[in-house]
């Protein structure tokens, strides 16, 4: 093991990172370190104080911080290093890390990127208007209210109606802040319909088919203008604006590295075992499928950790072939985005994806002439759609053809 500082370095201490460490530890790989760039571990759940965690893992609802504490109890000896930022990923298991004393290079036999996701902010959405203070995302809001005990505004507008948008509503309610409105670009809310009831109970109007056309004023936020389907335009006085949802993977380390990225999404390419184009690097969690539930990320992390343990023990057959997975418009991304084929026999894998818009119809997975999956599914955006046990026959597959995932009208 000479030349390596650790067996495995995990980048990010959210549910998937903790899970990978837990599984590795259980499999006997003990020289693990989890780097966390924040001063606290836990990723997004550490500042998400509503009970949307724990149902799959612990069979009961828990808040984010409680969920993280419970997960850490399952791997009490794993080493976390906070305030440690990975600034570059190189070949051969090399990482550049920054701590309070500067940057240095370390090497690991295997690296697991579990860098999470964040919400698309105002500028990436090309929202028109001025740039006053008071514009943020739900993630930032939660940190203001719960972590810093600070109140950034008194009457904000929430942009979006995903589950996380109602988390913003929950957070505001906790601080005694009443939002002026929620606005949604589409004709129906993105979260499950009953969520709208929560807003209604709090007396917060939801404007659908609404688009921001202006933000005023220069220094302090005074009002926004929206276009709605029913009315030409409408001014909403407010002193804050929360852009919620529209998660994107935090893949800046991968994007600046040698890893192959999927075209357009720029998410690192991974196979069904979460191995990237570099066999010494895995990528897992919401960085590659922004964004699933914390519990789902945890369960995925456990599988990854177990796989990496086998890989490091030399228990896996090398030199497999790979097959691309392609998808049509309407699908945001698939996980995996490439399939590692067993040399002989059957390759089995689960295939998850997200849709860009609500879809009710047939989902078909095919490879060459073979149909691997064909079922009617009801797919909503921001939810993970899981196709279990896709089977590919290595001997009969036409290796030049990709696996193709289609939404059929």
């Amino acid at each position, binding site marked *: 093991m000479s030349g390596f500082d650790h067996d495995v370095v995990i980048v990010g201490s959210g549910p998937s990172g903790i899970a990978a460490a837990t599984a590795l530890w259980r499999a006997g790989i003990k020289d693990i370190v989890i780097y966390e*760039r*924040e*001063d606290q571990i836990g990723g997004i759940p550490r500042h998400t104080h509503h009970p949307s965690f724990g149902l799959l893992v612990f069979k009961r609802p828990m808040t984010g911080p409680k969920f993280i504490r419970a997960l850490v109890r399952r791997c009490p000896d794993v080493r976390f290093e906070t*305030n440690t*930022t990975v*600034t570059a990923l190189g070949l051969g298991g090399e990482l550049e890390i*920054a*701590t*309070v*004393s*500067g*940057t240095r290079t370390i090497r690991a036999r295997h690296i697991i990127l579990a860098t999470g996701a*964040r*919400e698309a*902010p*105002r*500028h*990436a959405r*090309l*929202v*028109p*208007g*001025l*740039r006053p*203070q008071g*514009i*943020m*995302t739900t*993630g*930032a809001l939660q*940190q*203001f*209210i719960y*972590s*810093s*005990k*600070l*109140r*950034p*505004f008194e009457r904000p507008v929430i942009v979006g109606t995903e589950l996380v948008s109602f988390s913003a509503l929950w957070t505001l309610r*906790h*601080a*005694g802040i009443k939002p002026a409105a929620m606005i949604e670009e589409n004709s129906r809310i993105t979260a499950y319909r009953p969520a709208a009831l929560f807003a209604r109970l709090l007396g917060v109007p939801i404007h659908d088919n609404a688009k921001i056309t*202006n933000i005023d004023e*220069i*220094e*302090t936020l005074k009002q926004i203008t929206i276009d709605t389907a029913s009315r030409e335009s409408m001014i909403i006085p407010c002193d804050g604006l929360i852009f919620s949802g529209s998660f*994107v993977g*935090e893949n*800046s380390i991968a*994007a*600046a590295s040698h890893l192959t990225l999927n*075209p*357009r999404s*720029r998410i690192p390419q991974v196979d069904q075992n979460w191995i990237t184009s570099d066999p010494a690097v895995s990528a897992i969690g919401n960085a590659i499928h922004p964004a699933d539930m914390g519990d789902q990320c945890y369960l995925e992390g456990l599988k990854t950790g177990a796989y990496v343990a086998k890989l490091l023990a030399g228990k896996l057959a090398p030199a497999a072939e790979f097959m691309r997975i392609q998808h049509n418009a309407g699908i945001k991304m698939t996980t995996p985005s490439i399939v590692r084929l067993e040399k002989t026999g059957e390759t089995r894998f689960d295939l998850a994806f997200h849709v860009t818009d609500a879809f009710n119809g047939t989902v078909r997975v095919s490879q060459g002439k073979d149909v691997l999956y064909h079922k009617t599914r009801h797919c909503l955006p921001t939810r993970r759609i899981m196709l279990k046990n896709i089977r590919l026959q290595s001997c009969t597959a036409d290796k030049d053809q990709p696996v193709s995932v289609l939404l059929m009208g």
Partner: protein
Amino acid sequence: MEPDFTEKDKSSTRQRDRWDVIVIGGGVVGCAITRRFALAGAKTLLLERGKDILSGASKANSAILHTGFDAPPGSLELACMQAGYREYLEIHKHMNLPVLKTGALVVAWNEEQLAQLDGIVDKAHENGITDTVQISRNDLVKREPGLSNMALGAVEVPREYVIDPWSAPLAYLKQAVRAGADYKFSTEVTSGEFDGEFWHLGTGRGQFSGRLVINCTGNNGDNIEQICRPPTFEIRPRKGQFLVYDKSANALINSIILPVPTSITKGVVLTKTVFGNLLLGPTAEEQADRNVARVDREMLEGLIKSGNAMLPGLCEHAVTATYAGLRPATQFKDYQIDAEAGKNWIGVNGIRSTGLTASLGIAAHVERLGSETYPGLIAFKSGPVAEWPVMPMLAEHEKRAYQLGDGTEIVCHCEHVTRAEILAALEGEVPAGDLGGLRRRTRVMMGRCNGFYCSAKVAELTRGKLAPPMATDTEGQL
């Protein structure tokens, strides 16, 4: 130099508060002029109506250090640009200011533009930029393989560079303060009277008196001129919208990609920033409003379209920031800089998009103009050489604080800004006056997440130090 107004305001009528020079406007030109006069020994005061320097036109530009290759030959603009360019390269190392030596390519996208390249080379040579050469389509492809195959050829201008547009003017003002200058923010000049010896300028924060007034108010230039004389020009603000792409897009180009210019605008530019992003813009839109520069979706989408047409790989990359700036253009092409004889007033107006490059040259020109027009007005003295302020290095191609290790953790993860860097920007000679000022001084919250990860921490660190504050305490309320 704490911006403590109450104490100073009370004593403003006393002799010690009479200034040799009052500079109105803390844009890049005002900062450079304040530095120049302070270094020459004049007792100099800078008045800025915003909460920090660079609150107007100077905060939004393309950050290019121009050679002047395409400036009108014989113009004052060209002379100031070239003097400013030279001085910047002489002094930048003393102040730890970066230069990213990219060079520029003026790219022809059609036959008509291709035919203009000869003329561009000739003009560059006439302007003394003799290393400007035309390059073939093949050479262009070799240098910029990311460009669309619509590119037909280019003119190479090797010494067009990229600089830090916010640290440079701040460094100028810091050095001025070290040489004895003072400044007041949130101080808008609304009136003025000349008593034959002193100007007495009225502001919302009391009266300030000085022998010589220099108007550097950019988009407000003609209004401020009215205090002294009827302006001979009219400010016609020209809005420019920009897109900043994620650092992942930075490697798509090697040089600054300039379009073949028209008489109105330099056109849409693709350039790296010293911070490691890729910048696309500006648009050129005439508007009446002098203060408000909005971004609008249609224009941004138009910019994206033209960016993708020039650089097809760009379409995969995310936008980190959008912004709009107002360039203080006038009906004239050249700068409008002149001294009013007998009135101790110099107008520095119409400094459109080339102000960042030209500022140091403009400052030298204005000092000359002042001493020629008003001989003996200011007793310039050669005091001790002012210390160079050493600026925090924010350029991606240089060593940053987080790499060297300053004993504190990274707070802003997108831009790798440490806690010590943030705290330092809130103190010292010219502390950040508002959040924008802090962002420009440190890069904090300027990255791809727009503050998702760090804004609450920044709000904690800036508690009680910024106006308006980022948040109020909830302690005791929850």
